[in-house]
Each structure stands twice: as C-alpha cells, then as structure tokens.
C-alpha cells in the first residue's frame, strides 16, 4: 500500500509541477481520471467512443469507434476505425488501465467485458480479450459500469445482481491482464460490514473514485437492471420502479476496501469527481433525478459529510444530468443535461456556494462530456441508454467537439453517428501515440 500511495503522490505531484512550473499547461489529459494513470504528453489524438448498437443503423451492433482529433490530420474530426463486437449488449462505460495500454469496455445488459489493445496501434484498437464470466467470477454482480485504474489493477463498479436484477451490487477487482481478484459488496442494512449509516444504506452502486492521500474511496448509487434496461416511459409511470433509485454514497477505506460510512445523497447520485488540489479534500456528484449538485467533504472533526449545494436549472423541469466534468484548477464544473441537451458551466471555486455562469445548447440530448486536461477542448456525446434516448423527430446521435476560450464554446466538428452507420454514442476515452514510446507505432 505504501507503494500505491507513494506512486499516487508522485503522479499528482508531477502533474501539479507541470502546470505550475510552465505557467501554462504543457500536458494534455482528460480530467476526472485515475491519479494512477499515465498522462498523455501533448494533445489527445484519438477519442474512443463506446457506442451502442442501434436498430436500423449499420450492423446494429455495439462497437468501439475511433475518431481522429489530431488538428493537423487529413482525417481530423472523422471516424478512422470501428470495431464491432457483434450484437446489442447495452454498451455503456469504458475505462483505461493505469498504463493506458488497455481500454476496458463493459455492457450493462449481459455483463460482458471487452478489453481492447490501444497501445499497439492507438489509431486502430483491436480486441485482445473478451471476458464472458464476469457474473460467475464475481459471485453474482452484473452490469459492469465504471472501470477505474488502480496500480496494476482495475476496479469495476457493477450495477445490479443475478438474483433479482435490482440495484444491490458490488465493486469487482481485476488484474490488468483480466484475471478476477475480488468482489466487494456495497453495504446494505442487513450487512453493513462495519460501516456506519445503516439508515441510508441501499446497496446500490454506480461510480467510484479515490482520494489516495486520505486513503479514501467513494462510491455512488444508481438503479438496477430492471430500471435501466426498461423503457423510460414505463419506468416513470411505475410507482414501484420509481422507488428503486439509489439514495446513498459510501466512503471506503481504499487500502482495505472496507466500507466506512454510508452517506444520504438522494436522487441517484452518479459521477464522483474529486477536486484535484492537494489540499482540496472534497468531491462533487450530481443527483440525476433531482438535478442537484452535492458536495462530499470533511467537516471540522474530520467526518465525511454530504450537502446539496446547488439546484441546477428549474426544479420543476429537471435537467437529468448524465455527467459532470471538473476543471484541473477545481474552479469550474461542466454539467451535461440529458433532458435539455445543454451543458452548463458552474463556478465551484467556493465549493459550498457554487453558481451557474454559462450554458450552451449542444443538441437535443447530451449525456457524456470529456475535457482535455487544460480545459481548452471538450467533447460531448448524445446517448444515455438505449431505451431512455429521445425518439422524436429531433432525436439525434452524435459526438460534438468544442473549444473553450474561457468565454464561449465553439464547435470544432460534429460526427453524426446515425448517418455514419454507427449507433448511439456514449462513453469517451482519449488516446495518443505518445503514451507508448516503447512500441513501434504504426502510421502517425
């Protein structure tokens, strides 16, 4: 563990030194990633989009789509590679190993894990391993979601289970080679595993992020397969189903993977974003159902607490945020609304008193946002879930790239995922040749 913490400190320290020492950012990497992950030196060159197969579109199958984002490339803003895995599995999130050689892509429906080699030729990812026994190996966890890099390991949040397809689930740990290590179930009232906060525990799970210097891991909560796989009209009109959304976050001991405290955070708190400053011991999350921004922080006594600090948009007309992105100086946070297709910039420099300062309509619907490390480029994708996406005449599926100059978002390019025969664009990850200096890379 000492090595883990030491490496984390080194990595974070290197990043901070890079930023401070040069006055202007010289490294580019997406924010919100694992501190154990190798950074990209220079601009991201490729955006990998884990894409859901869509009826009537292309081969209708889930696929990894690679988009060229090298500004000087002849194929800038174009799709340069696709890898279809065959069939529709509810592709959703993906993540990178600490060495960024492998992109792990999970499926929420049938719990597949596809491991893509993005090091041999970053412009053309290739499947190197397909894990089909995630459920069996984990002891019943289903619906792999977040893939979070730990040193030599990945930690995967599962979102459901094989006993009732409800929201009770677990964290599942693998080696970088794809070998199962362990399962850690989220605390429930009848099995708190030593944690406090029994009155808030629901066993649900969604995202995970860590704060190594505090030896803390934080998980959030969503809903189970029976809700996220189901048509949204049906769920919204089913009073029983609407009671089955996560209302908790869990503080864990990162080293031992033991839960310590369950916090009450109602309304399906989704993405976890720790502030990056070395003395910023707080994280944000967005309650998707209530459109509230929550702050997770240590109080004067060192106790972890949760507080809602902002309602974004009209409470009577929730934005249903799908993702948040924090900037590398912890001053701002991008908020992506599924319902209104709008991204909002929130000033979080005072984390207890955030303010919305800018907004821009990106499309009919947006879900994910990914920012370059320096914050000058931000990418948006459209799809939430196959059965939650808009389906009216305004429905669209896209990746749109923007530049941010501190005042205005300006579109750089847009890829129409329907016209291109691709499907529903969801999670993005960045790649670059510069990560793999030890590899004889293919054509630049």
């Amino acid at each position, binding site marked *: 563990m000492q090595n883990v913490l030491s490496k984390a400190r080194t990595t974070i320290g290197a990043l901070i030194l890079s930023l401070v020492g040069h006055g202007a950012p010289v490294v580019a990497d997406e924010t919100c990633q694992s501190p154990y992950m190798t950074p990209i030196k220079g601009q991201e060159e490729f955006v990998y989009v884990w894409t859901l197969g869509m*009826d009537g579109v292309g081969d209708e199958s889930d696929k990894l789509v690679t988009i060229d984002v090298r500004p000087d490339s002849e194929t800038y803003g174009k799709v340069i590679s696709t890898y279809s895995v065959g*069939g*529709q*599995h*509810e592709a959703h999130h993906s993540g990178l190993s600490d060495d960024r050689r492998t992109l792990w892509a999970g499926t929420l*429906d*049938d*719990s597949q894990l596809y491991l893509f080699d993005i090091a041999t030729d970053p412009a053309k990812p290739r499947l190197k391993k397909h894990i089909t*026994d995630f*459920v*069996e190996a984990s002891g*019943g966890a*289903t619906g792999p979601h977040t893939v979070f890099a730990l040193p030599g390991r990945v930690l995967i949040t599962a979102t459901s289970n*094989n*006993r*009732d*397809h*409800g929201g009770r689930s677990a964290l599942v740990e693998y080696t970088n080679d794809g070998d199962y290590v362990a399962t850690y179930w989220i605390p429930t009232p009848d099995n708190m595993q030593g944690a406090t906060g029994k009155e808030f525990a629901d066993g649900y799970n969604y995202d995970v992020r860590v704060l190594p210097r505090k030896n803390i891991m934080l998980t959030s909560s969503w809903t*189970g*397969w*029976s809700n*996220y*796989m*189901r*048509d*949204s*009209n*049906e769920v*919204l*009109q*089913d*009073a*029983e*189903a*609407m*009671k*089955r*959304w996560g*209302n908790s976050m869990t503080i864990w001991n990162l080293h031992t993977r033991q839960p310590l405290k369950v916090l009450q955070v*109602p*309304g399906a708190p989704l993405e976890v974003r720790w502030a990056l400053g070395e003395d910023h011991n707080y994280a944000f999350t967005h309650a998707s*159902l*209530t459109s509230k921004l929550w702050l997770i922080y240590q109080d004067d006594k060192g106790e972890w607490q949760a507080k809602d600090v902002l309602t974004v948009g009209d*409470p*009577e*007309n*929730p934005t249903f945020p799908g993702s948040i992105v924090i900037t590398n100086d912890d001053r701002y946070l991008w908020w992506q609304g599924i319902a209104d297709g709008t991204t909002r910039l929130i000033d979080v420099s005072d984390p207890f008193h955030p303010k919305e300062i800018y907004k821009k309509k990106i499309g009919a619907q947006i879900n994910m946002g990914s920012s370059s490390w320096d914050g000058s480029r931000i990418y948006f994708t459209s799809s939430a879930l*196959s*059965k*939650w*996406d*808009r*389906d*009216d005449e305004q429905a669209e599926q896209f990746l749109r790239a923007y530049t941010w100059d501190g005042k205005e978002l300006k579109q750089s390019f847009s890829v129409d995922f329907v016209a291109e025969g691709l499907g529903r664009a969801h999670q993005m990850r960045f790649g670059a040749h510069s990560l793999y200096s030890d590899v004889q890379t293919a054509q630049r």
Partner: protein
Amino acid sequence: MALGTLLGALAAASAAGDEDVDVRALARVAAPPLGLPAVPVPADNPLTAAKVALGRKLFFDRRLSHNRTMSCAMCHIPEQGFTNNEVATPVGVRGRSLPRNAPTTYNVAYQRSMFHDARDTSLENQIFGPLLSPDEMANPSVGFLLETIAGAPDYAGLFEAAFGGPVDVIKLGQALASYQRTVLSGNSPFDRWHFGGESDAVPDAARRGYALFTGKAGCVACHALGERDALFTDHGLHNTGIGYVLVAGRAERKDAVKVELMPGVVVPMKLKRGSGGGARREKDLGRMGITDDPRDLYAFKTPSLRNVALTAPYMHDGSLRTLADVVRFYRDGGTPNPALDPLIRPLDLDDDEVAALVAFLESLTGDDVDELTADARSVAVGN
C-alpha cells in the same frame, strides 16, 4: 399421486442439489401444510427428488434465455413473494416491457389453468410461453434451448438420472413443473385459526375481516373457501374493470405525467413519443384475446390470496400498490364498463372495515416462507 409412491420417492431421494432440501420438498407435497388440499400431480409426471432438484436448477438458470440474462426466477424472485415487488410489470430480455404483472408461483400446483388469461393448461406446458416469447426469455427456437442445456457440462447426466434419457421438450417441461409443484405455502395464522382451531392465532381485526370477506363484502364469491381447505380462488375469470382502466387512461393520456422522483418530490414530466425500443404497452383484452369471445372482454383469472401480503403490487397489471388500495378499489365497485362482472358492485364499507379486510388478508401468509426461500436458494444461480 399415491402417498406410498411419494414416500418411495422420498426414500430414493438423490439429485443434483441438496438432498435434504429435496426430501423436504417432496414431504410438503406428500403432506401439504394446513389449509391446502392434496396436490394434484399428473400421472405421467410423478414427483421424484431428482426431478425436483433438476427443475429447481433450471428455474434459477439464466442460461435458459437467449442472452443468458433471464431465468424464471428473475421475474419470480423468492425473496419477493416469487413475483417481483420492485416493478408493476416485469422486464424481459434486453429490457423488453411486459404488459402483465408476474403471478406468484406460491401454490401454483393447484392452478387449473396458467397465465392471467388462462391460455395454457398445465405447468408442464406453460413454461414454453416465457422460454420462447421474444419479449421474455427469447430463445430463438426449441432446438436452441435444448442445445443450450445439453451443452452445459453441469447438466451432464442429470436428465438421464431423473428421466432415463437426455433432455427434450417433454422432460424439460416436466422437470420445471416438478420443482414448482413443491412451492407450497400454508399453515398461515388464518389456517391455524379457521382450520386448526387455534382461537388466538389471528387478531380480532382479521376475524372481523373474515366475516366481511364471507359476508357483506362478498369477496368469497370469487375467492372461494372449502370446508377443510382454501385456495381463495374460483379458478374463473372476471372483468373487474382493471383492464378497462388502461384503455380509458390511454384515451385521456397527455404528453406529461406526474412522477415522484424521490419521496415527496413530484414533478410533471414529458413522456417520449415512442417506446424507446421496449415493447409497446398495448391494449390488453384479457381472456378475449384468446377466445375472441366478446363476453371475455377484460376478463382475467382470479388469483389465489395465499401469501398475498408478500406479492405486491396487485392486479393483472400491477397497478395497485397496496392491499388497502385493492380493497378500496372493490369497495368503490371496480371500474364501470359495459362488460363489468355483475359480482363487482359498490360495497358499503367504512375505513375500519377496509382495515379489517386488510388484516384478514395479511393473516394468509404461510409459515414456511423462509423455508421456501432457503429451498430456492439452495441451488446456485446459473449464469
């Protein structure tokens, strides 16, 4: 099935699972809990421990669906009353929306017909409905399903041991029926009071509720009792107006509905235009969808009331959330419609009487619920 034959089967109990569990399962059938009649067992499918164990294993095996995500038990969840308490209507393969609530499998051995519209005739047959329905388990063919089972190493020899031959359609139906036939639940507080003579087995409210149930509320006309046992069903089909509600509701439906996003937070929300890839909730004609007989319009089967406190939400579409909601629905005379069953009429019940009826219904929970759950979970989920 003759008692002697069953006892013989008990003695020869051996199967893939926990032998004690299988022995107890057979014992439940041989001597049903208080309040339940003798279990009808088809002459061509006598119960054996090997069949029960095999049927249980199949029931909990998610490999029995096209993409290996759905088992029978994903909609008939042991800890949720062998139905799904968390949704009004269950969710099929790839999230397909299903129009009807999952009926409990408690005491399904006594059902004379299967499904809410009584379209199938036996437990042995009915399983092929969900196994092959593209909205439920979505096996693309019988052959695909049989090959899946035959090719699974952990099934090697099990059909041979239970039936003397490899898996086929008949044996598959018989194995699943054999397990389900053992899920018997009785000896409830009501049974111990009414049939067992324990005067203090139920609270006063439940006794008052029973008097109303069999008296002025008239529930017993459809939820019938016998002299020595009670299944609380007439095995018939009735139009209570619940089916008509859906039709009327659709006609009036607007683009927005009120949604409780979290306790106490209710907002109007705009619905999508289409189904988003899920199956559309279509008009449900009930039994008429099978018979084409207008007299069967919106007619659905009378469910048993045993363990009803565990099987929310209620009615064929899961539209009522609590037992009190159900009692009030009948108190108000159901939903008027041209084909409303004449047995459904407004009832003169005050709130205390509604509460008494609920107390009675809550007294129908069998004493072996935990045992049945443990029995169910004695087998590993197949993935």
